[in-house]
């Protein structure tokens, strides 16, 4: 293992190596336990400065799963609210497809919660006060921001993941987020499904700190991402 991060001197790399070697059948159960251990260890760590206090996402692959879980919590809660209090003038087609997106995001959130088991971070306290749920423009602009952010977050997280199984899981989800993003963008302005690519026709990727700098507006719970992998 090239990465040797330690939490209170304990080798995380060794744990990750063990996870990699587990059979597919058992590895998630194992991850649940392993990440619980890691997060417990992280939570016991007292030498962080106060700016790093808060809910610790953890380190290694479990940390990245918690990172994804946090983002899916935001998206799922947002679309749940959108569906509960539809913006004025919503069409039947929009209502049906926004309902689909809500279901997808709830499925993602609950999947991560189940997969992380005891290692999952708690439910985050969210703040959507800046969103006018009665306004089509406000809701769709926020949806676009969340979906594009989600795509860039998963794209940027790929290289931080050490397990091929988790990389594949992230891949299974990110393309669905990209489908959402394209649909929402087309609702706002037809034909803008992939605006914002670079000159090579590539989508954007963002690091966890870049993502939380944007998503943080909507999260009241203090998050500690200092143990997440950065390379």
């Amino acid at each position, binding site marked *: 293992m090239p990465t040797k991060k330690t939490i209170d001197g304990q080798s995380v790399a060794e744990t990750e190596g063990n996870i990699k070697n587990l059979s597919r059948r058992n590895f998630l159960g194992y991850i649940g336990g392993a990440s619980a251990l890691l997060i417990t260890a992280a939570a016991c760590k007292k030498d962080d400065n106060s700016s790093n206090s808060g809910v610790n996402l953890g380190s290694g692959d479990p940390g990245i799963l918690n990172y994804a879980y946090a983002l899916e919590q935001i998206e799922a809660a947002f679309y749940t609210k959108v569906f509960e209090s539809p913006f004025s003038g919503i069409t039947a087609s929009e209502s049906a497809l926004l309902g689909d997106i809500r279901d997808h995001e709830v*499925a993602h959130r609950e999947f991560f919660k189940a997969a992380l088991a005891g290692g999952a971070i708690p439910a985050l306290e969210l703040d959507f006060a800046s969103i006018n749920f009665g306004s089509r423009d406000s809701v769709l602009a926020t949806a676009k921001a969340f979906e594009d952010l989600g795509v860039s977050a*998963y794209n940027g997280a*790929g290289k931080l993941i050490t397990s091929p199984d988790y990389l594949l899981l992230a*891949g299974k989800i*990110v*393309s669905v987020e*990209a489908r959402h*993003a394209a649909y929402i963008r087309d609702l706002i302005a037809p034909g803008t499904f992939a605006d914002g690519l670079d000159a090579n026709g590539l989508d954007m*990727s963002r690091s966890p700190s870049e993502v939380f700098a944007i998503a943080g507006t909507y999260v009241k719970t203090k998050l500690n991402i200092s143990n997440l992998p950065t390379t």
Partner: protein
Amino acid sequence: MKIENIINEIESVDPEIFERLDGRRNVMKNFARFSGKIALASLPVAFGSMLSKAYGSPSGTNDAITDVLNFALTLEYLESEFYKAGYAAGVAGTLAIPAGAPLNAIKTIRDHENAHVNFLKTAISSMGGTPVAFTAASFDFTAKGNFANVFTDYALFLAVAQTFEDTGVRAYKGQAGNLMSNNDVLTAALNIHSVEARHASHIRQMRKANGGLVPAGVNVKPWITLNQSGIGSTAVQASYNGEELTTQAMVSIINVGGFAISSSAASEAFDEPLTKEQVVAIVTPFFA
């Protein structure tokens, strides 16, 4: 990923690949490495860092990476030439793509696929590999007569486009694990992967707007529901088989966590990968 396997797989698509590629392979390798280094000076910073990292890794790893990128390049050529021909037919009026937003969208997607071709060509060359090369003449978009009217029948054109995009998403997804040894290449591939998904989403909306979906009453959404294509041809089914999965990493997604998640929504929420072998089998009929 074994090099031999990749060459064999490409050979099954393009029987002349050995003559056109393998014979040149060893001869070209040193030259490509040399020219790649020269080209470095003019490349953007991020791309340059990808290359310098690639140069720092063992050549065996590089070969494995460039073989995956050549597989991706093959698919991007397929898409690029398809949209070039489709857009040209649309402009000429022989393919009834409505003027305005629909024709513009096809142009946009064509340009992205072309950009992907150029990006991958540069990446492969610069890493010391030899990019595969295809032209319009390399392809048979009627798929041996299965889609005889693909460039005169707008609904059929969109159906084939949807199949290519959804297949492309699955193909990139299936290769991500093979790129883990090079973070920058992996990130670039992921950044293409999500663009293919954006294309798929838009083409699917165009199909819904155009109508004529098969079977009658089927709903085509921006995302893939179960293993439904909405296309009246069994020839495309291999691109959708497996998408009906509703269990992820042993977690059943239907009603997960006590929330009402239908089997349709559970399948839509996760896109599934295809292996290289599966993709090659799917695209083989489209090579002349």
